[in-house]
């Protein structure tokens, strides 16, 4: 029996001590606590900052919290903010639908054998990625300056099927949806293309050898496998779109940021209302991230031997680990003389 072995034959193992990690963790914890303290601390009496210009409010009675959380809570779920949030969600949703459908079509065009189709798709992406989305937004909003009316017919012949006046179509909201959606399509086409070319050529050959048509191969074999590659950057794009939609306030769409700005323009509570907007953006982003996790898990099937654990599974595993630890401790005590 050598020195490291206990009487019962077990060996004591000393894990590596990560001193640097402990110090770093401690610094981070202190920083977080300091930040948390600034969020909730009261201003010491005598230094009361009178931030409300509105004469009705007296300084000593009302806002002695620097962040004016009471103002935040007061406006957090007012109908104006709520309407703004709904418009933001509508903008994000519609623009993403245009972006994803358009992007997948552009990616398929880009990969087409036809030179005409692939160069059209390339030019589209070149144009819409090459100019700022804010410029595109203003462009769509002001498009009536270029085209008074729009019609669908045969070019250069006097045949028209549909005829519309431009100003009736390009309302601020429609212009914003179109601008955000067409811009997104350019970016999404690259995401979709990367997913499509990531699928092994052999998968397509196997589908062909079974007699599947091109459309079936794309729908049943290529796209489901491309999703695994497409999803993570798509989650990024949706979250990015949620926030980019605030640009729509530039053409007068009352979305979330415009709604809170309107309120603070009347009561001068700029910071609390920006916090209101930020909290809502954060909440929606959180929900989207959770959705993304489960979608990715769904499309990862077959790709890796063990799919990533859900948070619930992880907690269960941790609890089981802790319970197991206690169980193994007890018999040792019992064995001790």
């Amino acid at each position, binding site marked *: 029996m050598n020195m490291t072995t206990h009487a019962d034959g077990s060996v004591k193992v000393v894990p590596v001590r990560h001193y640097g990690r402990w110090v770093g963790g401690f610094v981070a914890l202190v920083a977080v606590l300091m930040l948390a303290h600034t969020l909730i601390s009261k201003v010491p009496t005598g230094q009361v900052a009178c931030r409300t210009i509105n004469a009705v409010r007296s300084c000593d009675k009302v806002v002695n919290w620097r962040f004016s959380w009471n103002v935040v809570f007061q406006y957090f779920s007012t109908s104006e903010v709520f309407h703004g949030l709904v418009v933001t969600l509508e903008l994000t949703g519609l623009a993403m639908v245009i972006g994803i459908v358009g992007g997948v079509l552009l990616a398929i065009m880009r990969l087409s054998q036809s030179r005409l189709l692939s160069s059209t798709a390339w030019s589209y992406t070149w144009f819409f990625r090459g100019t700022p989305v804010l410029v595109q937004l203003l462009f769509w909003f002001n498009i009536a300056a270029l085209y008074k009316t729009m019609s669908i017919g045969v070019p250069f012949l006097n045949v028209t099927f549909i005829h519309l006046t431009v100003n009736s179509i390009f309302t601020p909201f429609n212009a914003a949806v179109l601008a955000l959606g067409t811009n997104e399509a350019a970016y999404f086409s690259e995401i979709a293309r990367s997913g499509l070319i990531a699928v*092994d050529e*052999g*998968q397509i*050959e*196997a*589908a*062909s*050898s*079974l*007699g*599947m*048509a*091109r459309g*079936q191969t794309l729908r*049943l*074999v290529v796209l*489901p*496998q491309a999703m695994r590659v497409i999803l993570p950057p798509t989650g990024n794009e949706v979250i990015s779109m949620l926030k980019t939609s605030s640009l729509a306030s530039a053409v007068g769409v009352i979305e979330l940021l415009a709604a809170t700005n309107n309120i603070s323009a009347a009561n001068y509570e700029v910071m609390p209302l920006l916090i209101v907007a930020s909290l809502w953006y954060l909440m929606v982003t959180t929900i989207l991230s959770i959705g993304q996790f489960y979608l990715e898990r769904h*499309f990862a*099937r*077959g*790709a*890796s*031997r063990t799919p990533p654990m859900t948070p619930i599974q992880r907690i269960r595993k941790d609890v089981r680990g802790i319970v197991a630890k206690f169980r193994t401790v007890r018999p040792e005590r019992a064995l001790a003389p």
Partner: protein
Amino acid sequence: MTGVRDRDVPMVEARGVAKSYAGIEVLKGVDLTVNRGEVTCLIGPSGSGKSTLLRCINHLEKHDAGELRVDGELVGYEARNGKLYELNDKKICEKRSHIGMVFQRFNLFQHLTVLENVTIGQTQVKNIDRDAARSRARELLARVGLESKEKHYPSQLSGGQQQRVAIARALAMEPKLMLFDEPTSALDPELVGEVLEVMKDLAKSGMTMIVVTHEMGFAREVADTVYFLDAGIIEESGDPNLVLTSPSSDRLKIFLSKVL
């Protein structure tokens, strides 16, 4: 299949089939005849054109010249009024669905379970209803010895198991001809046997098979005819016992001395 005429026509007939990639001639006029119920092995060094010839037969590659017929019908074209009309996608798909193919890298659909891999062709291409497709799939999985793996994904199987699923997937289409493109080349040596066993059983059942392979033992035991390709030309062909034991061309002598 149907009719008396079909019985007399070879399953595959190639006359002067040629194919080039970017100016490089891979096949330089190949003649080949595969009769019904026969096993044909294509052997030869890498780059000799064996796989290309195989892929021309189910039109995964287009041949540039020569005449290629499967079951008496031209591959990829239709002769009408003294002209050759290129077939459209739908007709090509229909013809491919009667020819099974097994690949070197298995190419199982990674996102589908074993059972789904074997049913997808039946339900999507042959429009067989799901339950019938499943029971046929289970039958075939039992035949290749994998009935217990139907819920697994391809990534959870060994190479040999994956290749056996791929054979079952191809058989599910009830093909009249099976093409094997180096089916054991990507396998660990100890897994080669289980795939070859399945292929031997299939040969015994009377399936017409064309096998590109480096397994000379299999070729000698199972093949009715062996073709030796080198640099896009068939150097030698005939009964495997003759071709593989007493080769007449120097090229084949050198090849066999390296492979055996």
